[in-house]
């Protein structure tokens, strides 16, 4: 185990506390505050993984998850970015995508096979002859992919979600972000500050260089963080990655919980009036041969290893950098004990004089206009060759670390996914946001500022701009902030894409996909000449690092290779999530919201087997016999009870109530009498039946009506939609959940009802199609209708939901002597089918209209002037005989019923079976089918083609309907 620094002010580790974990089956210890990657580094691990395609060794390169180099499996979860995952006791960590180990990978030889794998080579190979492709494909599948996930993997932990609202959301908790948050908060606004790391401070946090007035950057970060934390109206979410930004300022992210939190991870979706993006920069990789060899790392990575995690990255470090942070890192690491043979700075001039002096004071060799051209060492960097940019001079040094960093890349992700446009800026060499979305502002380092005061001034200004969006900041205040901003140093000059001359065969522009610059050239030569197409063809940027490595270099290199002018340099598209996010985290709490009827528990107690039907849970069966034979027979012979509470129920009242009903129902409702039940239907504009139900007149322009279960939720919407141009005064009240419904059906139904009511319910007093209101036990108010959906004497009792249990139990008790039993939705389905009563969606479909399914009798043709929905289509389509028609059929020779969904065929498909059953009531197989018009005549022979019939047809004949009790006496008795 390596020695750790324990005295630096910037440290985030506590060396006194050891954390045990398992790596490759062996126990190791990390230190409190370690990430998984730093704990492994401390234990001497240098090769973390092998690359996807060539199985090249990969090591610690960056710090913020820019590439897949340090991805591992942790606790069974694959592809975890170990650089951004904090170590927890007992973690079980494994390497991925290796045969053997990352150290000694048997697949390592593939690295030498790259000549056979130019960009897009898959497309030109492995298909000749055709039969090798399936074999090759299997191998490709096995080789592809990085992590392993078990099919029965169970994700441990608690996942949660929150949906906060705020005035200003600041993304990024560095100096610019904190300043912006403070500025907005001082204006009295509700501010949310999101920071990806577990602490505030950003790049200031790990830097000990001077910020201003002898205060170090780190000290300044601490000071700002304290101020933020004591400001009540700033809500800080640390360890919260921003993953998306959408228009109208919807911001998404997820937070990783600490031991104190009630969640493992939680999804955050917030809405802000205004947003400040202060996400800073990552580093732009330097391109040279073997630029991703373990031991090569970025400047920030090297510096943070030391300053944040107390680890000296190596003994001897050569630097090849293009920015002041590189010089700063060299000085800091030198002071911590690293030998630095040389710093190659791409820049010929422009270095910070203070840093130059510091370098000179330490007698470190600094060569300007020099750059690394090749890293040597089979598995780890052992040596590096550097050249002057003109290629004339060359030097080689032994080393175990090569700090390589070409420049900075602004993290504009949140801006870009929210549709900001980027434009290449020659001064900073950044793609800078130009057209920012409304009420979204950028601040800090991502705009090119490097001076600490400039960064904060830009944060302050952005915070006030956001406050202005919320109408909480004056123009004068804004003007002042702008002036203050302008008095500070402007954006720093950035380094261009500079490379010493190399072939590029092992110069990787994308680590995740092993895309070399050679591959990029090949793509361009093939006609894939824009970065977006190169991505698709070569894979560059499509890996788990989400283009953190190639995002900036690919467009720059593409432009350079094609010698395009600056104006034509186009960035690649950034796609969310900006940080890879677990499906478990996105799913959050994942509530399933389904409705239950008022007697749900009673139905379950009685053995109901439930199914989801639309938004409801309903009892479909009451035994494991899914033919529901006993339930059916009991309704036919005795009496059954069905929970019909899911039916839609509405009251419509007001001066235009009748007009509204006339608009949507095909029947003429002006003629309904009080005390009668009118069965009718609604069509859509195609004439297709969308709903059926009953209408009851309660008074003048006051009606109670029912809809099918599936339509209840849309009924108010539907009626209001089709009357939206009329200035009609009517009121609609949805009573669906207010009323439970008991369907009491069977020859004994009256006997049961008689026992519990005081009024006369004889056939004369309460006949078929009639409506009555009465009380049961002087208490329970009931709206009762006599209907016949199942073809027996039947009462539909509508009861206030709170009384449902009571009435259900009263009826059950009263019905005992008449053999009352539950029946479920499937029994009802068969019972009504025997009566040829249709269920919409089962006997009807999009192609069929009211007339096709035999409900034409509901259409009142005399009713005109109401612009009734569907009538125009019905009139126009009426004479078309080729339409599908609903028919009833019986099977030949006492044959069994065809399965639902069976086709009716001759030399082509002529129709299909909607519902068919071996009827217990009729002792024969019957069903309903939709067939083309010319086959709908009674007597037509139908040939049924079922799935898996192997061409063996069964036969039936179109018959008169209904099958059961054709005269309809039983429901009227």
């Amino acid at each position, binding site marked *: 185990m390596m020695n750790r620094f324990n005295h630096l002010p910037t440290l985030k580790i506590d060396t006194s506390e050891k954390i045990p974990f398992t790596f490759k089956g062996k126990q190791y210890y990390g230190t409190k505050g370690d990430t998984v990657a730093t704990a492994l580094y401390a234990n001497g691990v240098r090769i973390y993984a092998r690359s996807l395609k060539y199985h090249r060794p990969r090591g610690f390169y960056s710090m913020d998850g820019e590439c897949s180099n340090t991805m591992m499996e942790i606790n069974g*979860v694959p*592809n975890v970015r170990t650089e951004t995952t904090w170590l927890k006791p007992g973690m079980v960590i494994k390497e991925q995508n290796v045969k053997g180990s990352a150290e000694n990978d048997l697949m390592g030889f593939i690295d030498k096979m790259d*000549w056979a794998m*130019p960009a897009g080579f*898959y*497309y*030109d*190979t492995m*298909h*000749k002859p*055709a039969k090798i*492709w*399936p074999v090759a494909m299997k191998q*490709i*599948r*096995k080789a*592809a*992919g990085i*992590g392993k*996930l*078990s099919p*029965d*993997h169970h*994700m441990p932990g608690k996942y949660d979600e929150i949906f906060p609202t705020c005035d200003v959301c600041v993304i990024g908790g560095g100096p610019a972000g904190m300043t912006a948050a403070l500025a907005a908060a001082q204006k009295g606004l509700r501010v949310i500050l999101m920071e990806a790391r577990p602490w505030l401070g950003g790049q200031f946090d790990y830097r000990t260089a001077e910020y201003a007035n002898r205060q170090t950057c780190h000290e300044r970060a601490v000071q700002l963080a304290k101020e933020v934390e004591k400001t009540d109206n700033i809500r800080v979410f640390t360890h919260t990655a921003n993953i998306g930004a*959408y228009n109208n300022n919807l911001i998404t992210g997820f937070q990783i919980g600490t031991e104190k939190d009630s969640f493992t991870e939680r999804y955050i*979706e917030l809405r802000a009036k205004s947003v400040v993006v202060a996400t800073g920069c990552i580093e732009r990789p330097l391109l040279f041969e073997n630029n991703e060899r373990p031991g090569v790392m970025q400047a920030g990575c090297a510096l943070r290893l030391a300053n944040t995690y107390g680890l000296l990255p190596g003994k001897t470090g050569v630097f090849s950098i293009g920015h002041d942070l590189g010089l700063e890192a060299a000085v800091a690491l030198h002071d911590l004990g690293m030998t630095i043979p040389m710093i190659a700075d791409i820049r010929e001039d422009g270095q910070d004089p203070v840093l130059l002096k510091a370098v000179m004071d330490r007698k470190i060799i600094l060569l300007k206009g020099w750059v690394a051209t090749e890293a040597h060492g089979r598995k780890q960097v052992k040596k590096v060759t550097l050249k002057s940019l003109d290629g004339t001079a060359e030097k080689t040094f032994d080393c175990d670390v090569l700090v390589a960093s070409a420049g900075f890349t602004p993290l504009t992700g949140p801006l870009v996914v929210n549709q900001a446009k980027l434009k290449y800026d020659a001064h900073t060499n950044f793609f800078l946001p130009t057209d920012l979305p409304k009420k979204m502002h950028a601040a800090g380092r991502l705009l090119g500022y490097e001076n600490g005061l400039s960064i904060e001034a830009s944060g302050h200004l952005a915070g006030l701009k956001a406050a202005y969006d919320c109408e909480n900041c004056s123009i004068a205040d804004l003007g002042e902030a702008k002036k203050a901003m302008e008095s500070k140093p402007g954006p720093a000059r950035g380094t261009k894409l500079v490379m010493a001359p190399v072939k590029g065969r092992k110069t990787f522009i994308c680590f995740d996909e092993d895309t070399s610059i050679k591959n990029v050239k*090949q793509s361009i*030569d*093939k006609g894939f000449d*824009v970065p977006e197409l190169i991505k*698709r063809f070569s894979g560059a940027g499509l*890996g*788990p690092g*989400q283009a953190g490595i190639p995002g900036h270099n690919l467009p720059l290199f593409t432009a350079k290779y094609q010698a395009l002018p600056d104006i034509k340099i186009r960035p690649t598209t950034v*796609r969310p*999530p900006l940080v*890879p996010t*677990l*499906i*478990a985290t*996105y*799913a*959050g709490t994942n509530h399933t919201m389904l409705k239950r009827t008022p007697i749900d528990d009673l139905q379950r107690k009685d053995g109901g087997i439930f*199914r*989801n039907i639309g938004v409801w849970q309903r009892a479909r069966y009451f035994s494991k016999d899914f033919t529901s034979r006993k339930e059916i027979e009991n309704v036919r012979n005795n009496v059954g009870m069905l929970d019909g509470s899911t039916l839609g129920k509405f009251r419509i009242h007001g001066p235009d109530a009748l007009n509204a009903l006339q608009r949507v129902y095909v029947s003429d409702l002006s003629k309904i009498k009080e005390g009668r039940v009118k069965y009718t239907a609604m069509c859509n*504009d195609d004439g297709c039946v*969308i709903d059926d139900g009953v209408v009851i007149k309660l008074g003048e322009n006051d009606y109670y009506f029912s809809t099918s279960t599936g339509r209840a939720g849309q009924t108010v919407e539907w009626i209001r939609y089709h009357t939206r141009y009329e200035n009609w005064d009517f009121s609609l009240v949805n009573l669906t959940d207010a009323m439970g419904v008991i369907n009491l059906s069977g020859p004994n139904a009256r006997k049961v009802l008689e026992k519990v009511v005081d009024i006369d319910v004889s056939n004369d007093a309460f006949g078929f199609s009639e409506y009555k209101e009465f009380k049961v036990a002087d208490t329970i108010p009931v709206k009762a209708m006599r209907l016949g959906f199942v073809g027996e004497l039947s009462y539909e009792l509508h009861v206030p939901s709170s009384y449902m249990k009571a009435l259900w139990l009263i009826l059950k008790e009263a019905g005992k002597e008449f053999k009352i039993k539950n029946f479920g939705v499937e029994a009802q389905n068969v019972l009504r089918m025997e009566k040829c009563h249709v269920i919409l969606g089962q006997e009807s*479909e*999009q192609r069929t209209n009211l007339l096709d399914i035999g409900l034409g009798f509901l259409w009142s043709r005399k009713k005109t002037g109401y612009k009734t929905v569907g009538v125009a289509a019905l009139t126009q389509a009426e004479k*078309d005989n080729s339409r599908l028609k609903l028919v009833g059929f019986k099977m030949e020779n006492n044959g069994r019923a065809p*399965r*639902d*969904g*069976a*086709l009716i*065929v001759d030399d082509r498909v002529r129709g299909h079976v909607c519902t068919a059953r071996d009827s217990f009531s009729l002792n024969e197989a019957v069903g309903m089918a939709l067939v083309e018009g010319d086959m709908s005549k009674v007597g037509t022979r139908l040939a049924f*083609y079922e*799935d*898996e*019939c192997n061409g063996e047809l069964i036969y039936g004949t179109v018959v008169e309907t209904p099958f059961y009790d054709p005269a309809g006496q039983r429901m009227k008795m």
Partner: protein
Amino acid sequence: MFFKSKPMWGKKTKLKSSYDVVLIGGGLHSLATAYYLAKEHGITDVAIIEKNYIGYGGAGRNTAIVRANQRTQYNVPLYKEALDLWPVLTKELDYNLMFNNCGNLNLMHSEAAMNAARMNIATAQFHGVESHLIDAKEAKELVPALNISEDITFPIHGAMFHPPGGVVRHDAVVWGLAKGAAKMGVEIHQQTEATGISTKNGKVTAVITDKGIINTKQVLISAGGYSASLIHGFLGIKLPISVLTIQAMVTQPLKPILDHVVSSGAYHCYANQTLKGEIATGAHMDQWPNYTTLNTAHYIKHQAEALSEFLPALRGVRFMRIWGGLADMTPDMAPIMDGNEQVEGFFMDCGWGYFGFKSCSAVGRHMAGFMATNTCPDILKPFALKRYQEHKLMGETAALVNYTPDN
């Protein structure tokens, strides 16, 4: 050492002032039509006009699932032909389209859904397409990651298993067809925008582009999600189309875990594993017309919630990339293919919704036949625009489509 590369679809040429045929849109249907115009009808004086670059639209944004288990007899044969063409095209184009014939599992979550699936299966079998109804246990054997327990929102009752379906590498189809068409003389003009169609006496005379006017007697608009807007803008023809954004995404790459395409109507979700190992998933669409192709937070969350339930192992994998494309939806979920009807010389091939990829090869072939002979092939006849005013919706969906209340 490296293979020397040449531009795959020829050198960039200048737009000519006339072509026999102009195809608007550089997507798969256009490319396939061009390819077959040249290959089967010897018509090579063809220009493809593409505003962006080929495969920029739906061709490059779909999740590449292919199958032939549609609902009606009008559709099944067309998709069957398309399915049979993948290996043929791989050979003809000498370009590996990477047809992964892994089979599709369409999950069913109720008895009613099982019955509805039976009709699709019977229709498939009647037309010689392999498709079977399997129960939940059999589905679990095919897809071990499947959750067949009762305690999820939509418990799995079984599935429609369609072995001949699978996944084709969509980009390869674009590039392969472009390569094949270009080789026979078809010109592909990228970064060229069609801005109008000129007609005279009810006949097409020219296509206007931002790079000049092209005289032509025949033009096809097959521009994916942009078709309806172009057709209305250029010719004033309104279509029964709503253009919606459909989204898809992939997770980080995994070693093999999912060997079939799995989809669920109830969960509005499908998932399959690409050759690279990513789990590609999608299906949910926002129900309002828009041309943004932007993704939504709502959609990602929905997808995660759905997968969490029926493929719970995937809770342990991370979403990596999401994108959107356009789907031009019709009320009956079936496309509109028509020609010489509204304007002589004008053809359209649109309204594919999210079925455009699966059908492109066969449709290109028949549209080419239609344009070359000016006679509509029987297989395309049911797809004419007129069906809407004749009250003859196609029946490709049984359910009423939900994106407008006046479906």
